[in-house]
């Protein structure tokens, strides 16, 4: 790194801030037990409001990740009413997860029925059309894993949806939907990028978390 590490000495960082950063990460990802022991170790004040919800959020996340979208939807409705109504994109993503489940379990008739009832109404809006067609295309293949749309049935896709759902639930409860840590890293990367662009060779190189952790 080109920036002189000694310069960091001038900047004070409050311990409490660090604790909060770590806490926000743990809470966001529903690490309940870790949260409890962290609070015990640091003597922090217990952020009571979102502890109980953490357990529920964790379950919702798990169901979504597995592909059990209907259960995830049910629990979400309980925890955060009207969330999905207000967040149609998310609702669509979850419903299509269920559709994918049906297709993968080769339950074609059910999948078709489900698509007609629940998914095709989204088709009235232009922005959902292409995604809808992507999902519908899965029906055409006896082995959807080998179809051009195979990425839609991947774990990666489910993870994206699950994380999106998690963030939405947090936002719904007026909590930050991104962890502080994530934001900090994002900010650093962006600032470094700007500096790099402005000063080209003279400026600091783009931020790399990996390199930073190694140094």
């Amino acid at each position, binding site marked *: 790194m080109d920036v002189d590490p000694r310069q960091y000495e001038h900047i004070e960082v409050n311990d409490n801030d660090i604790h909060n950063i770590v806490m926000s990460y743990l809470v966001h990802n529903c690490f309940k037990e870790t949260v409890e022991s962290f609070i015990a170790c640091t003597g922090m004040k217990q952020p009571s409001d979102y502890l109980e919800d953490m357990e529920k959020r964790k379950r919702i996340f798990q169901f979504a990740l597995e592909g059990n979208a209907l259960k995830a939807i049910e629990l979400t409705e309980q925890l955060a009413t009207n969330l999905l109504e207000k967040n149609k994109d998310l609702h669509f993503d979850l419903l299509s997860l269920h559709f994918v489940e049906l297709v993968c379990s080769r339950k074609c008739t059910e999948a078709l029925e489900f698509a*007609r009832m629940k998914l*095709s109404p989204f*088709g009235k809006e*232009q922005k959902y059309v292409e995604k809808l*067609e992507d999902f*519908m*295309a899965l*029906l055409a293949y*006896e082995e959807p894993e080998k*179809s051009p749309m195979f990425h839609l049935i991947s774990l990666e896709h489910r993870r994206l949806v699950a994380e999106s759902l998690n963030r939405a639930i947090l936002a719904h409860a007026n909590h930050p939907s991104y962890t502080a840590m994530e934001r900090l890293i994002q900010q650093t990367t962006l600032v470094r990028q700007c500096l790099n662009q402005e000063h080209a060779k003279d400026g600091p190189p783009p931020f790399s978390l990996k390199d930073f952790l190694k140094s």
Partner: protein
Amino acid sequence: MGGEEDDEPASKRMKLSSKELRHLSNGSTIKEPVAGSSGDLMARPLQSEGGEEVVGSKGVIKKVEFVRIIAKALYSLGYIKSGARLEEESGIPLHSSVVNIFMRQILEGNWDESVVTLHNIGLTDERTIKSASFLILEQKFFELLDEENVMDALKTLRTEIAPLCINNSRVRELSSFIVSPSHCFSVRSCKQDTLRARSRTKLLEELQKLLPPTVMIPERRLEHLVEQALVLQRDSCMFHNSLDKEMSLYADHQCGRDQIPSQTLQILQAHTDEVWFLQFSHNGKYLASSSNDKSAIIWEVDANGVSFKRKLSGHQKPISSVSWSPDDHELLTCGVEEVVRRWDVPSGECLHVYEKAGLGMVSCGWSPDGKWIFSGVNDKSICMWELDGKELECWKGPRTLKISDLEITNDGKQIISICRERAILLLDREAKVERFIEEDQTITSFSLSRDNRFLLVNLLNQEIHLWNIEGDVKLVSKYRGHKRTRFIIRSCFGGLEQAFIASGSEDSLVYIWHRGRGELIEALPGHSGAVSCVSWNPANPHMLASASDDRTIRIWGLKNLSAKRKDTHSNGIHYCNGAT
């Protein structure tokens, strides 16, 4: 399929030949309908190199193909019985039996069987087989959907269509159709609103296009071949100069010389000195001429011919050229190294004089919207003026010569003028790009084609060069024959679709060439002095005007028109029964 007629007994062949001969109108190859005569090509079919029978004097038409496309044409025309009879009599089936079965299966909707038959037709290209199968199964899919048999349609899609592994985007669209048959999600995948399964006949047509022509003869093949021949005939017709000449199948199309103006219809005598320049207006209703006598004359063209309208006087020097405004209401005249005058045609009034102190104009032209005029100046620059005389722009440097033509293209972007003895400048005034036509000889004049794609350049060495000026300039043709030694001689494009080139000459003849073929068609006598300029009426391909040092203008038209013409109003041409 090709070997079938080999099984025919010889006697049947002979019988066929005499019968067929009566029906064929192919007069050039069939001489006598006598079986066994040596001139009778049908009775004793020739063997081509491939061992197949051929017809026609050149031995390039395969009999089997010939009969098949005739049969196809008969069916297309609706003569089903005749078509069937031909197939029967000739023993040459239009389609092989496999193909016939295939076609029947398609029309009857036996999809699965038709796919099997498809594999037996004898196609070699895997891709074609798959594409054709796709089309057939797609039809099956849609017909199932129409019957609301969704599950079977889905099954077809999954087990038959998708495994073909072609056209994935279409497979995607078909999936969408299953989910929402009543309306499509996106407009682009919707072909028709309600009826999605198209007719089986249409499917057959699509398959026909897909399969090679040897398997299924394309529709209207015979008509296409005949049209090709007609177009070829028309293109090679050297004298083709009339719109109303219809083409007939009975004889090769050939216009006679009588379509080219070659007879003096009128001699116009009104100038008192050599006539240097003339030009028809864009609408062909007027002719403007300019002369060494310092005047320009406007002539009117009408039913009775060309008549004097008025003389424009005012120049103090001989007038080297004139230029019609795009709407033909005004005329520019340019005195030799003098001024440019703008005249109102109906009244003959001089509307404006364009001049530059201490300098003289050498050429003039209009912008295509009629708002500006351009002129070459004898200080080698080109100027652009507003109609009221305000100078807008001036391109300096060697842009023009002392005597120069000036043309502006129809898009208003290019200015063309002679800039050096042996070079023509094509200046794109917007893009500020200059292109040049370079010649080995001195250039004396040039003329721009109506479509602005070509430039006709007159050279000192008695050649006329045709250049293509689109993109990179390219020399296309050369025309020779006329005489030029001392004076400026001008040439022009003319005739129907500007298919001809006409030029003046110092030997007092008017020369006409066929543009495409470069051949000299006519050298017209009449004038008694060098012919310096010609102009072909843009509205009347049969009218040509020439200007000569003998102080006259001659109007040329078709020979023997009054005798030949039955209806004089057919193409608006009216002839003056003037004598030569």
